[in-house]
């Protein structure tokens, strides 16, 4: 699942993020100025150093403010031409070659081929484009310095800021062009690779519900086996029908003509390439005593992302939704869920674990159990709750919410206010009886004793109208584009003071570090089991598990103190490196989830927040270095 952390609304996120950014920029600026002052003091003496540092800083402000667009554009065009000369189109040729081989090897029998194809094209594109960005940006300036072509540029009225900006823009333009072409080819590859149909003949179908001498009500049967799967098909008396869902898609089917002229048709795959717009609720857990808890049972996983509930008891996973209304869900309530299963005994292993889905009105407590389902480990279950509810799997109930407070157990609504007559009805309207002022609760219970259901907040959502897939695909590539621009920024920055190969390694280090920055942050904050780097290394050597306490002693104390220092270093590194992984939307596109505008905005602002200091740092590195040797 792509959404494992809650996405905060952009405007709520922005002030804190800006404050954090400003703080980081101020700290880095002060640290860099002090370092510059120190180096200059060693070289020229303290008084001259102050003067020189002041001049560099003031000249820096002027150089950034007085950037000439014409000069920047000239340098941008030069970078583009240089990239073309360095045969960047080879990357495109490699991409085509990779796709050609992938077409042969991608498994058409995969349970979700769309996910496979989309993951593949997005991953292949991002690897190739990031590698290209890495090479172009890291080697360009050092090559110009080595061949001295930069001498004829910097002896013109060109500011270092313009040199840096020209490179960054030039490589971004060439990378963007290549990425656009790759996106187009990838889209064609996915559509072509997933497009298929099945054949249907009279022999494949049998009539169902046929009264003596009358037309059959349905025809059911199986389509032909294509792409390693076949569908169950049901055609109504009108001649229109559809298949079941297999490999994440279904087909429309139809029958035309009659007698010897009858023709069966199966359409192209439907719902294969989707961009669901999920509406998430907040999750709480009901324990076997019926009391609400913020967390579920830990079944022993170190990854405590999902909480579990016990089967065959009143325990339930409860999602509370806001803003549920007829306008958003005119056709009823489409619910999609992926429920994890923890078995304490094997049971019938081919069969899933039984659970039920109920709806509850949070004000009145009216609870209607709608459907029993079979949860297969991490398979997505889709169900649509109709507007008029007339079928239940158990009698409706009025269930108060129970919470533990210092004063004792609190009921909502209170026992005295419960309107038990509500449960006597046999027909309910979804929006009038179960939704209260936009609020609705969805309960999921595990029906089998000894088994457990587990879920996280994002594992059940209401599926509002889908967004256009093509747009989501483009958003996925926008994520790769952001990563590419960041790599170019870091590559150009390192290349202003390092040789080509060293700049490349440094950029690669930043890239890899960035992918692990989330882990480094958690490690620095002590949120990872097993302690800091030294403690973890000791555990490895001593074959100690992550959870056991280390023996106390001098060595342990020294090691943990050293770890505190190392964790500080890791925190600094993780704070100044962009978390590259967060810019990847591959999972969203592959799993068929819409990439929200909030997320796009956040990541775009994130990228700019990194690029600005990177640009300024690159400027100063180029400004204070001697171009000639």
């Amino acid at each position, binding site marked *: 699942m792509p959404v494992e952390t809650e996405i905060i609304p952009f405007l709520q996120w922005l002030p804190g993020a800006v404050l954090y950014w400003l703080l980081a920029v101020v700290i880095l600026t002060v640290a860099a100025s002090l370092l510059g002052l120190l180096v200059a003091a060693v070289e020229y003496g303290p008084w001259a150093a102050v003067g020189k540092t002041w001049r560099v800083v003031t000249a820096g402000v002027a150089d950034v403010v007085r950037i000439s667009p014409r000069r920047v*554009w000239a340098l941008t065009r030069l970078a583009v*031409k240089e990239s073309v000369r360095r045969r960047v189109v080879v990357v495109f040729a490699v991409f085509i070659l990779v796709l050609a081989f992938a077409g042969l090897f991608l498994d058409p029998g995969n349970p979700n081929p769309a996910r496979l194809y989309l993951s593949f094209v997005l991953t292949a594109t991002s690897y190739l484009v990031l590698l290209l960005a890495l090479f172009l940006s890291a080697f360009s300036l050092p090559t110009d310095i080595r061949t001295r*072509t930069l001498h*004829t540029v910097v002896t013109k*009225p060109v500011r270092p800021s313009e040199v840096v900006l020209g490179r960054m823009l030039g490589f971004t333009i060439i990378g963007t062009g290549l990425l656009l072409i790759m996106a187009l080819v990838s889209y064609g590859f996915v559509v072509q690779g997933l497009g298929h149909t099945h054949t249907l003949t009279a022999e494949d179908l049998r009539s169902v519900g046929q009264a003596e001498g009358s037309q059959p009500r349905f025809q059911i049967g199986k389509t032909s086996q294509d792409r390693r799967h076949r569908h169950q098909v049901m055609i109504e008396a009108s001649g229109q029908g559809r298949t079941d869902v297999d490999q994440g898609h279904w087909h429309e089917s139809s029958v035309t003509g009659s007698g010897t002229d009858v023709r069966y048709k199966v359409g192209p795959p439907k719902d294969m390439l989707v961009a669901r717009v999920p509406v998430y609720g907040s999750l709480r857990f009901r324990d076997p005593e019926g009391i609400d808890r913020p967390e579920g049972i830990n079944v022993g996983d170190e990854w405590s992302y999902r909480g579990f509930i016990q089967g065959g008891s009143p325990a339930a996973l409860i999602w509370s939704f806001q803003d549920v209304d007829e306008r958003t869900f005119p056709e009823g309530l489409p619910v999609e869920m992926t429920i994890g299963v923890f078995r304490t005994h094997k049971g019938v292993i081919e069969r899933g674990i039984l659970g039920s889905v109920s709806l509850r009105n949070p004000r009145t407590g009216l609870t209607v159990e709608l459907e029993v389902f079979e949860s297969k480990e991490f398979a997505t279950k889709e169900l649509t709750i109709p507007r008029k509810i007339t079928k239940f799997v158990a009698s409706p109930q009025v269930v108060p919410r129970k919470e533990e407070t210092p004063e004792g157990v609190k009921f909502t609504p209170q026992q005295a206010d419960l309107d038990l007559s509500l449960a006597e009805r046999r027909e309910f309207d979804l929006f009038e009886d179960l939704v209260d002022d936009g609020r609705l609760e969805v309960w999921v219970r595990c029906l089998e004793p000894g088994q457990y259901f587990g879920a996280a907040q994002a594992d059940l959502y209401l599926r509002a109208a889908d967004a256009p897939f093509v747009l989501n695909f483009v958003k996925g590539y926008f994520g790769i584009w952001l990563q590419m621009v960041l790599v170019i920024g870091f590559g150009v920055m390192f290349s202003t003071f390092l040789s080509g190969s060293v700049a490349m390694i440094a950029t690669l280090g930043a890239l890899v570090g960035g992918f692990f920055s989330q882990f480094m942050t958690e490690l620095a904050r002590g949120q990872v089991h097993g302690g800091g780097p030294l403690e973890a290394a000791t555990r490895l050597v001593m074959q100690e598990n992550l959870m056991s306490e280390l023996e106390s002693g001098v060595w342990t104390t020294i090691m943990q103190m050293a770890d505190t220092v190392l964790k500080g270093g890791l925190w600094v590194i993780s704070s100044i490196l962009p978390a590259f992984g967060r810019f990847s939307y591959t999972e969203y596109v592959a799993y068929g989830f819409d990439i929200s505008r909030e997320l796009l905005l956040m990541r775009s602002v994130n990228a700019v927040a990194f690029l600005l200091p990177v640009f300024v740092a690159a400027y100063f590195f180029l400004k204070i270095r*001697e171009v*000639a040797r």
Partner: protein
Amino acid sequence: MQSDIIIETRNLTKVYRDFWGRQKVRALKALDLEIRRGEIFGLLGPNGSGKTTTMKLLLGLLFPTSGQALIFGRDATDVTKNERIGYLPEESYLYRFLNAEETLDFYGRLFNMSSSVRRERAAQLINMVGLGSAKRRQLREYSKGMTRRIGLAQALINDPELILLDEPTTGLDPIGTRAMKDLILDLRSQGKTVVMCSHLLADVQDVCDRIGILYQGELKELGRVDSLLKVRNVTEFRASGLDEAAQEEIKQVIERHNGELIFVGNPTSTLEELFLNIIAESEAHPGRRARGGGDADAS
């Protein structure tokens, strides 16, 4: 009012250091120099004497270890000074994937020149350096001489007041060398200041008004070329149409005044002049064997 001093260095020193900050070589030692508007100044010296280091310090490509270099009264590291400077490096460090027109267009953009001015100026310079027929060929296909010429064109794209030429005649054939020297003299006649460094002494002698001689990073001599080269105790006369008797009479006059006759004979032309005459004659009369100059004229 504009200052007459275009370049001024005060105690300019450059020490090259290794990665650890240890001194490797003192390339320039306390150079004090003033170069005035409208003169052609030559920096002479053997390889490693500090000529190119001085040039790079003046251009801001290197930073001085101590002392100061001022161009138009501004610090050499100030990029705005470059608006009035043209620079021809020792090798023509140009982008070899561009053609002549693209090269000049690129450098013109760096001077913030408008499109029409760039086009006009590029056409003018390409004609001036004689690359009209090769203007759309990539520089990678150019000969060394052609590369020097396009290098010179880029140095003049902004019609600079000060032109710095690092070994301007290196790699040029005699015709190119003469053209380069003529151009340098032409630039002076336009009121521009030229600073060149070279180890080809004849070229420097031909064009420079003043020279400075560097050796091991130190300025050993500085002054006007004509006064530095003048041999004060030797008198030279040149005459034509004298017969044997007249020459004998002049010898006697010299002896009478206690002078020592050092040489009497016919002067020789330079190899450069002979070569240029042959080329000129061959172009005027294709297919005929050229007779050159010098002795041929005398016979």
